[in-house]
């Protein structure tokens, strides 16, 4: 038995060694591959003022941006550790309201999710709008429509119009690829493109994820859906809205109305480290760099502003 015990120990040790060997290999290939992420252990450098750890969670749409900015921020502030987690806007708002995280990322205003009994929780949250996401209606390439008015979109999404020929396209049945009722993207599309909440239609497809929506719209004959601008490409037809093309410039100028803020909420005023991180987010370096690179629209560039009730004002 003694022999066997030591044998098991050896096995465990070997596997740990093998694992660490794997890790070492990873590090070297990262270097070799020209990956920019730093592979040397972060050391406490004297002279940095900021310290502490920041935990952010929530919106999966905003997550890639926050991750990327966090990495940059950590590189210049070695004492700070920022963890970014997903979970969805609802989770982010829940966790920041319960003070389980420092920052709750959300695609929608907190007031829209934390209603009725939870309204006082929303009141305690401080909003930081870091980016803007615009949403465009897209169709399958074959339907032959390039532009829809607000009323036509409403008719399609409420099921009044069921064939593309009624709005000037081919004789093809309209297939709606919608989002689930809890989706922030759907809330934005309904508020600012349709101007009304729509009921789910029997037989409509609902997907939460932009990738799946894109795949289905490009594959399904007669399909219509809506996507954030960063997902658009040649596999789909992007529709103009009331004659306005959904472009970054049109959004910034306030001509194209279907957009929403990406929010980073803190519970009360943020502490020094969190504030520095959020301030860094609004610097020109990030707003014109990472935000644009990842397909969002810089919040700082917007020439119009919108409040929680949807009132738009020119800056």
């Amino acid at each position, binding site marked *: 038995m003694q022999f066997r015990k030591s044998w098991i120990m050896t096995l465990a040790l070997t596997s740990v060694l093998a694992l660490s060997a794997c890790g070492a290999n990873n590090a070297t290939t*990262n270097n070799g591959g020209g990956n920019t992420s730093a*592979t040397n252990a972060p050391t406490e450098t004297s002279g940095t003022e900021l310290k502490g750890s920041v935990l952010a969670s929530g919106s999966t749409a905003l997550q890639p941006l926050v991750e990327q900015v966090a990495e940059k921020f950590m590189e210049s502030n070695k004492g700070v550790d920022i963890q*970014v*987690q997903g*979970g969805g806007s609802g989770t982010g708002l829940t966790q920041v309201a319960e003070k389980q*995280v420092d920052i709750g990322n959300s695609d929608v205003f907190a007031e829209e999710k934390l209603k009725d009994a939870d309204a006082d929780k929303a009141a305690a949250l401080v909003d930081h709008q870091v980016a803007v996401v615009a949403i465009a209606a897209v169709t399958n390439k074959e339907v032959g429509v390039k532009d829809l008015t607000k009323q036509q979109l409403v008719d399609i999404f409420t099921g009044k119009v069921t064939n593309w020929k009624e709005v000037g396209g081919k004789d093809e049945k309209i297939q709606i690829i919608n989002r689930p009722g809890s989706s922030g993207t759907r809330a934005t599309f309904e508020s600012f493109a349709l101007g009304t909440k729509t009921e789910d239609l029997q037989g409509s497809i609902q997907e939460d994820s932009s*990738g799946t929506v894109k795949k289905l719209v490009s594959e399904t004959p007669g399909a219509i859906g809506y996507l954030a601008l960063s997902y658009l490409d040649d596999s789909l037809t992007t529709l103009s809205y009331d004659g306005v093309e959904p472009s970054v410039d049109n959004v910034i100028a306030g001509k194209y109305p279907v957009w929403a803020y990406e929010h980073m909420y803190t519970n009360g005023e943020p502490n020094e480290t969190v504030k520095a991180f959020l301030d860094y987010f609004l610097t020109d370096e990030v707003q014109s760099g990472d935000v644009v690179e990842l397909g969002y629209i810089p919040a700082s560039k917007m020439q119009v502003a919108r409040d929680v009730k949807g009132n738009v004002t020119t800056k």
Partner: protein
Amino acid sequence: MKPRTADKIATTLIVFFALLIVGILVGLLGYILMRGISHISWDFLTSAPQKIRAGGGVGPQLFNSIFLLFLTLLITVPLGLGAGIFMAEYARPGKLTAFIRLIVEVLSSFPSIVVGLFGLLLIVNYFNLGFSLISGALALTVFNLPLMVRITEQAFRTVPKQQKEAGFALGLSKWKIVTSVLFPVALPTIITGTILSAGRVFGEAAALMFTAGMSSPRLDFGNWNPLSPSSPLNPFRPAETLAVHIWKINSEGLAPDAVQIAAGASAVLVITVLIFNLAARYFGRFIYRKLTASKRMN
């Protein structure tokens, strides 16, 4: 219809359906591997994923999957052995034993999404462990533990009675018999079962989306201090596993080669499961041979 004709038709149908299943598997594996294998390279397996550029890999995800599996087994194997040995050797038939057996059965058939939600509520939010490896491992424990209990119990039950009786005849204590007589004999079956259950853990996604999270912070593979936040070994960091990553890039992937990455990652996942299966078979046989040989020497 003549019985003989009926017999022939039935036999043909049975053979046809059986081969159809083989066909489904071959088609499935073929499809996954054909689409994915061309994308697998050393670089793909080791480099970090890219958010919007092509050429990202699944290095951290692969590491997370393996590390999470390791953590889960670290928790479940000792606990599963304890409970399994109790069920096989100590429990007297009665209401309590029947109840525990029922618990094991119910626990192992809970849908993984329910386990994930339970983990979200209790481990992530209530115990405030956040989306982390340790939350994921604890959630996986919920459905891996009953499997381990069952594997251990069955393994101990297959040990011939005579071995135990010989132990008693020598005046050994029950604990001594369990640890020195029965355990070595049961070990090969336990290991085989553990490796097979590991395959399930490796491919689990639904429970992990709500517990281990869907993000993978930058890992510093030169830093092996488990307490450092950027260390791969830190169990309190969020960790996206390979299976969750497939789900995520299928749905939210912005990189132009997201489809190929999903295909490649699927292939990696399937190949790993294949390896687990082969390893389970080979390992079980190997250890069995080792143990029986060493016994003869004694």
